[in-house]
C-alpha cells in the first residue's frame, strides 16, 4: 500500500511538472476555465432574479449545492483523466503495456495525469459556495466542517467511480459511451439544484441507482440545518457520504472483472 502511494506520488509529480513547463499557457487555461464555469452560474442568477425562489430554497442555499457539486466534480475530473482517455488506449492497443507492468492497472491509469487546469472550476465552485454560506450565516462548528469535507470526499469518490465504470464498459464496447455523460455531466447539472425539486423518478434514480443524492443532497441539507422535504432521517444525512466511498470500491471490483475479460484489439 505504501509502495502504491509512493508510486502514485511519483506519477503525479511528473504530471504536474509536465504541465508547469508551459506556465503562461497553464495560467491562461485555468483563468479561462474559471470564467467559463462562471458564465454557467449566470443561468442561476437570472432564474432567481425572475422567479425569486425555487420552491422555498433561496439563491444562497442553491449556491451551496452548486458550489459543492462543482468542487466535488472538479476534484474527480482532475484525477480521472487516465480513465477518461481509456477507450482510446484500448483502441490503440496501448493497454497491453500497462498489463505487463507489475502494478495494478487502476493505479497506473489513475497516475496518468492530474489535470491542474480543473482548478478553474474548483475555484469557481469554492467562490460560489463561500458566498452562499456567508449569506446564510451558518454556525460553522467542527461537525459541520467535518460533514462538508466528508461530502466533498464522498462525492469525488462517487464521480470517480462512475468514470471508472464508464471506462470499464470500454472493455466490451471499445469506445466511450456518450450516454454515460448523462450521469456525470448530467449529474452535475441535476444536483446543482436541490434534488427535492425534481420529479420522483429522477429522485429515485439519483438515490438508488446512482447514489449522487447521498453526497450532493442529503449531507448538504444537514449542513444547511433545514428539514428535508424528502423526509430522510436526520442520522442518515450525516453518514450518507460514506455511500460515495463504497461506490468507488465496488466500481474498482467491476474494473477487475473487466481487466480479466480484456482481449487486445491487436492494432
Amino acid at each position: 500500500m505504501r509502495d502504491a502511494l509512493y508510486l502514485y506520488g511519483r506519477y503525479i509529480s511528473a504530471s504536474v511538472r509536465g504541465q508547469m513547463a508551459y506556465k503562461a499557457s497553464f495560467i491562461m487555461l485555468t483563468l479561462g476555465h474559471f470564467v467559463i464555469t462562471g458564465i454557467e452560474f449566470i443561468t442561476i442568477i437570472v432564474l432567481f432574479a425572475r422567479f425569486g425562489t425555487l420552491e422555498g430554497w433561496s439563491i444562497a442555499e442553491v449556491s451551496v449545492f452548486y458550489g459543492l457539486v462543482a468542487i466535488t466534480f472538479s476534484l474527480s475530473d482532475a484525477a480521472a483523466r487516465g480513465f477518461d482517455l481509456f477507450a482510446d488506449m484500448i483502441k490503440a492497443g496501448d493497454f497491453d503495456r500497462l498489463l505487463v507492468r507489475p502494478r495494478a492497472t487502476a493505479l497506473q491509469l489513475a497516475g496518468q495525469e492530474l489535470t491542474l487546469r480543473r482548478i478553474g472550476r474548483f475555484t469557481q465552485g469554492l467562490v460560489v459556495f463561500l458566498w452562499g454560506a456567508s449569506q446564510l450565516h451558518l454556525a460553522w462548528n467542527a461537525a459541520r466542517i467535518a460533514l462538508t469535507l466528508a461530502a466533498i470526499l464522498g462525492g469525488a469518490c462517487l464521480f470517480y467511480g462512475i468514470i471508472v465504470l464508464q471506462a470499464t464498459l470500454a472493455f466490451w464496447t471499445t469506445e466511450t459511451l456518450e450516454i454515460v455523460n448523462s450521469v456525470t455531466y448530467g449529474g452535475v447539472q441535476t444536483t446543482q439544484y436541490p434534488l427535492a425539486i425534481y420529479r420522483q423518478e429522477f429522485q429515485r434514480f439519483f438515490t438508488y441507482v446512482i447514489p449522487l443524492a447521498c453526497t450532493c443532497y442529503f449531507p448538504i441539507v444537514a449542513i444547511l440545518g433545514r428539514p428535508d422535504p424528502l423526509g430522510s432521517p436526520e442520522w442518515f444525512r450525516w453518514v450518507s457520504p460514506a455511500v460515495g466511498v463504497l461506490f468507488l470500491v465496488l466500481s474498482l471490483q467491476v474494473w477487475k472483472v473487466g481487466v480479466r475479460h480484456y482481449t487486445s484489439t491487436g492494432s
Partner: protein
Amino acid sequence: MRAYRALISARFRMLLQYRAAAIGGIGTQLFFGLAMIMAYEAFYRSSSAAQPMSYRDIVTYVWLGQAFLAMLPWNVDTDLRALIRSGAVAYEMLRPMDLYWAWYCRALALRIAPTLLRAIPVVTLAMLFLGMHLPPTPASAAAWALGMLGSLFLGCAFTMLMNISLLWTISGEGITTLIPALVLVCSGMNIPLPLFPAWAQRILYWLPFRGLIDVPFRLYLGEIPPGEAGPLFLQQMAWTAALILAGRWLLSRGKRRLIVQGG
C-alpha cells in the same frame, strides 16, 4: 462552385459515419432536456407572477434547443486543428479555391450532419411523449425554417472565427472555449432571453448571438409573430456578413504570418 459542393458532400458523408455516437447522444440529450424542464417546472411552481413565457412554451423551447444543439458553434473542426498543428495546412493553401469559403463549406457539413442525426429523433420523441408542440401556424413554421437557415450561416461564421484562431494559438483552447460559453448564455440556449432582466435584454438583442437561437425559436413558438420577422432576419444577415468579413480579414493576416514547420 462544383468544387465547394463536392467538398460539402464529402465531409458530410464522412461525418454521417458516426451513427453509434449519435444514438448515445440522443439519450444524453433527452436526459438533459428532462432535467432542464423539471427545473423550470419547479421555478414556475414557485412564483405566481405572470411570466414573459408560458411553461408550455418553455417545454417546446427546451426540446428545440436539445434537438439543434449540434448546430450551435460549440466546437472547432478537429481535422483542421490537426492540419494546422502538423503543418499540413500548407497543402490547403495550395488548392485552387478560396481558403475561407473552402473551410466555410467544411463548417457547413460539420454543423448539418450531426444536427440531422440528432434533431429528427429528438423532435419525434419529444413531440410524441415529452410535451413538445408544433408551431401555432404554418406562417410561424415557415418563418422558423428561414430563421434556422440564417442561424446555420451565422453559426458557421462563428465556427470559422474559432477555426481561424487556431492559426495563432496552437493548442487553441482560449477562444475556442470562450466563444461557446458566450454562445450558450447570450444566444438564449441556456435560458430564453425574455427571462433575462430588462436591462440585459436590451444589450443581448443587439449582439450577434441572438440570431442563433432566440430569433428562430421564438418564431417557432409564434411568440414573435411572423410579420415581425423581417428586421430580425436583416439583423441576422448583417451580423453574418460582418463576421464573415472579420474572418476573411483575420485569415489573410494569419496566412501571411504562418510559418510552416518542416518535418
